[in-house]
């Protein structure tokens, strides 16, 4: 009990967790710690099927045994939390902290909120065709404004660092927050008594305790770095300084011919395309942007140029077989795989094999061949059928001699990339897109920017690529109709959002129909 308080009170603690995070174990530790510290302890939960990865809530109440003895009666402890009547809320994931706040469990007058800042994304967020992630910053802001005290730290990272489970870190963070009515030693003792994976659990507990104590002492450190990590990077770090004279010349072109506001993105584009093909190809990239630059101005912060430069670099470095094979055989990639797979919990183990899952289609095979060969092969049904035998799922051990050499051979096809069938197709699309932008810019700048951004629809492989491309085309074909409307730029923005709304294309078709309502003859056919 807090000293100086006369009437003993019930201490109320809610744990917001995900199924599978060990909330039951954590609850048992807290109960044992409370009972060992002279409290009557009660806990309830609603597990069942909600446990399977869903959001779950555990609720605990503690009352000093001495208080009950003095009163000569048992306290009546509740089985679920009352909004506005909780002393301590701990959330083992950021959005679960948000959910607890939504339920009114966190209030300014009394609630300490101990929250992990890491995210376990929900299926809805992950399924989006583009960026569907929830806004973590909003939740953190509300937490800062709503809780009496916020202790925020990345518990998942600490658990991983100590190869332990998050429940150990959560208990440590609770102990370190100083908000429990009993000591951190009692918590530590509860872990010890449970006896399993003791060393790691205790180390994780200690790490959680230390971090929470530091965070609690210094409120400024509470703006955890997590949100920045989550946000997709728009940070255009400049590329390394070139040494090669031809690369230097390209970078010099950027600074002499283009505005400095776009220098970084252009630098990344040039760097990417030198890596992708060669210096001449990167030079072509800059050449292609000159007509766009002509239509742009500093008054408009060169928005169109920036957006086009970004999209063009991606489009010109389309992911063909050679590119994929090249990226997969690099030393840096091997190192990354090693770090990713051995970074988690469990035993270390030696990395013995990397197996890549490729599933080439006839389109990919023909696409990577020179046009004179690829185009007819692709056209004739007999050759298509023969090639079919080489398609389908392939597993390639890229870190073994055969697999590596096979992948390198595929990567080498880039020597004839610029005369390949795929390149001819992409090149035509790129030119069409650029012509369109140059044509739109003087008449409707905003519309041109929106069309430039539509490049992001064209991505991926196989069906994904074809779906994206067909939706991009549908938008481009609708332009004449849209231009007759009041605000074609927002119409395109709306269509782009709809194109990314669902895979089946229901929303996109609906948006197309809605926006073309006044000009029924103009709606593109078969847009899916």
């Amino acid at each position, binding site marked *: 009990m807090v000293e100086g308080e006369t009437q003993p009170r019930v201490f109320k603690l809610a744990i917001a967790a*995900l199924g599978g995070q060990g909330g039951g174990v954590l609850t048992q530790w807290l109960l044992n710690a409370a009972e060992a510290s002279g409290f009557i302890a009660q806990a309830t939960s*609603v*597990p*069942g099927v*909600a446990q399977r*990865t869903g959001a779950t809530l555990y609720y605990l109440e503690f009352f000093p045994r001495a208080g009950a003895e003095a009163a000569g009666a*048992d306290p*009546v402890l*509740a*089985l679920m939390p*009352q909004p506005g009547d909780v002393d301590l809320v701990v959330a083992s994931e950021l959005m679960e902290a948000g*959910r607890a*706040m*939504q339920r009114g469990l966190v*209030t300014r007058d009394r609630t300490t909120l101990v929250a992990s800042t890491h995210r376990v*994304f*929900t*299926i*809805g*967020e*992950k*399924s*989006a065709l583009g*960026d569907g*992630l929830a806004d973590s910053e909003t*939740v953190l802001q*509300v937490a800062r*404004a*709503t809780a009496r005290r916020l202790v925020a730290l990345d518990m998942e990272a600490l658990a991983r660092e100590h190869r332990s489970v998050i429940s150990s870190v959560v208990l440590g963070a609770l102990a370190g927050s100083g908000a429990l009515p009993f000591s951190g030693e009692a918590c530590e003792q509860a872990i010890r008594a449970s006896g399993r994976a003791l060393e790691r659990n205790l180390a994780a507990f200690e790490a959680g305790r230390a971090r929470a104590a530091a965070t609690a002492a210094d409120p400024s450190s509470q703006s955890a770095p997590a949100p920045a990590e989550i946000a*997709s*990077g*728009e940070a255009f770090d400049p590329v390394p300084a070139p040494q090669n004279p031809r690369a230097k010349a390209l970078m010099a072109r950027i600074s002499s011919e283009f505005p400095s506001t776009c220098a970084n993105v252009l630098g990344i584009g040039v760097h*990417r395309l*030198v*890596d992708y093909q*060669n210096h001449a190809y990167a030079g072509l990239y800059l050449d292609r942007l000159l007509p766009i630059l002509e239509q742009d101005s500093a008054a408009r912060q060169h928005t169109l140029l920036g957006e086009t430069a970004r999209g063009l670099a991606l489009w010109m470095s389309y992911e063909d077989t050679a*590119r*994929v094979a090249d*990226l*997969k055989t690099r*030393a840096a990639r091997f190192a990354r*795989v090693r770090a990713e797979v051995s970074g*988690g*919990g*469990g035993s270390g*183990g*030696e*990395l*013995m094999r990397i*197996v890549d*899952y490729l*599933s080439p289609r006839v389109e990919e095979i023909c696409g990577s061949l020179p046009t004179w060969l690829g185009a007819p092969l692709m056209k004739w049904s007999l050759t298509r059928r023969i090639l079919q035998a080489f398609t389908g*799922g392939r597993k390639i051990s*890229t870190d073994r001699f055969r697999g590596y050499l096979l992948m*390198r051979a595929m990567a080498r096809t880039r020597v004839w990339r610029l005369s390949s069938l795929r390149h001819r197709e992409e090149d035509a699309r790129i030119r069409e897109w650029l012509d369109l932008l140059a044509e739109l810019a003087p008449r409707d700048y905003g519309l041109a920017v929106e069309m430039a951004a539509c490049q*992001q629809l064209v991505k*991926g*492989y*196989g*069906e994904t690529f074809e779906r994206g491309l067909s939706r991009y085309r549908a938008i481009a074909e609708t332009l004449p109709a849209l231009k007759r409307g009041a605000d074609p730029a927002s119409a395109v923005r709306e269509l782009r959002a709809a194109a990314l709304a669902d895979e089946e294309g229901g929303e996109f078709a609906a948006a197309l129909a809605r926006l073309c309502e006044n000009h029924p003859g103009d709606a593109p056919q078969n847009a899916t």
Partner: protein
Amino acid sequence: MAERSFAREVELLRLTAGEEFRGEGILAVTKALLQSGVAYVAGYQGAPVSHLMDVLADAGEILDELGVRFESSASEATAAATLAASINYPLRGAVTWKSTVGTNVASDALGNLASSGVKGGALIILGEDYGEGASIMQERTHAFAMKSQIWLLDPRPRLDSIVTAVQQGFELSEASNTPVMLMLRIRACHLYGSFIASDNRRPPFTAADALAAPQRDPSRIILPPYTYEQEREKTEQRWPAAVRFIKERKLNEFIDGPESELGIVLQGGLYNGVLRALELLGLADGFGASRLPLYVLNATYPLVEEEFVRFAAGKRALLIVEEGQPEHIEQAANQFLRRDDLQTKVLGKGPFPMAGEYTGPVLKEGIRAFLEEFGPRLLNPVTEQPLLPAAQLASAVPERPSGLCTGCPERPLFSSLKLLQKEVGPMHVSADIGCHSFASLEPFNLGASILGYGLGSAAASALHTRGSKRPLSIMGDGGFWHNGLTSGISNAVFNEHDGVTIIVDNGYAAATGGQWIPSSEADAPRRTARLSIADAVRGVGVRWVRSLNTYDMKDTLKILREAMSTREKGPKVIVAQGECQLNRERRTRPLLNRLRKTGKRVARKHYGVDADTCTGDHSCIRLSGCPSLTVKPNPDPLRRAPVAAVDYDCVGCGVCGEVAHAAVLCPSFYHAELVDNPGAIERFMQGLRRVLIGFLQRRSQRKRAMAW
């Protein structure tokens, strides 16, 4: 129970008189059964009563010592029928299941049992799955009690109250020759608390005694003319006997309060919530002293008219706190007061909502609304803080529905079905109860209806026309053995139904905690398992039966296509096999750890996504939905959509790679093989590869560097 050990919980069952029991509510019930001299226990698992079954399944030794028969019943109907032993013999018996779904299944046997009446105490322990976290349709058990004349106890959620209710339940049953239901809400089942134990009691009369001297009383049989007599007996003898018992033994509690003009009638199970609400309104202390008089119904059926009238006399108004609908207690209260011509107002639904759980806020607001009308002076002015965040967070916090676990063998099955739909167009999918129910949620969105456990196939019965696309039914192995074999499969054979049924064979009743079922593969102590689902299906006359391994999606798709198109008449049954990953982990992890420690070679796989080739479309996630397949920020500054990534919980099941292949998705997936204690040759080869490939890699790296 299968792979999880309940050894610690079993030890709690051995506590002797005076020792303190500390644990879960449902375990307290289990201990209380042994303390009551129960002779037999049966039941069907399901949250929130699974642990009662799990612990007894592991407690063979104790049960043997006490001479108690325990069965994991085939269904709730079987469990209910087990209580027949108490009709003719003075045997105390208890059964348990999840209500109301289990009670629905059991109701045939229950109705007949209640009509026959019992000699030995018959206790039905029900986990009332109502409100937050419930996984079933929302109904009340109360109506079953009323229709069959079975008594219903709803004790206060304290371990000692619950333990007492078990003891009293047997006594009430014997005193009134009627089975008794003991209803426990989810939170009460999972409530951690303590009580002082008594010694376990051997049943004074056992099954052996019964079999040695069989008894038969024609008047207990469900045939005319006895059934008419039994109904008369129910109303004229058993009911009054129950009311007398409840009154004399003071099952219901009267708690006095100074505000004698008003009163609250509440179900015992809601006592703690009501007291907390009163405390927050400034009308009770933390120890149960209330300013408003309380009438706590620990027995909610039958109600004791005399007690109601006594409590209501001289009061202006009563508030009935009764969860769920219809409001049976409120209706009865009105009838009682009318009959006795009392003018006390009765409120219940009104201040409280008709539907939904009585959560903390609902209780507080309901009582406040009642007092605003009848005792406004008792209310403090509202000083509570506005609860700000809800509105701000409404759009910020995404829903988090349940889903299949990492590595679940059912995931590739549903991914395959999604791919099949791409080929054949949308299908009618009749879903069932079990983990596979989650396939009806994101990202699979498969399943048009769920009609009950094991009824997936039966629920597609009407959808059958020659020449149209075949309906597809899902059934779990649990549901199959529960009733699906007859209700679904043999029904389809008999009626020449042409549909396709997939039986998900994961080896356990997985959704309820991984209990053994007849087709479980492992050596189940005290059970005969390893029965073949395919043989059973053939045995009832199905000619087209295929078994498949769900992780092999190519084969799965082939078989699914064939099932949808074959000329073979009659039901098509696919047994989709893949061991429940949760239980597999429990089974294999200790084994692998031991191997690892003893220096044996242990290999495991970990999947991953190459961030620099992933373009952030997330088709893979929409097709697989694996919790471990997640997203992370795109490392490419030119791209905006987050890329797919595999987290550290990956168990290496390989479904994401299979999906990428089967759906011809993208070349970004890879798997890495990690080996503990590799052999010398393996190590040498790996070293050689590293040196040679490393040399080539460095060479091309140099070339690239020179270009910049």
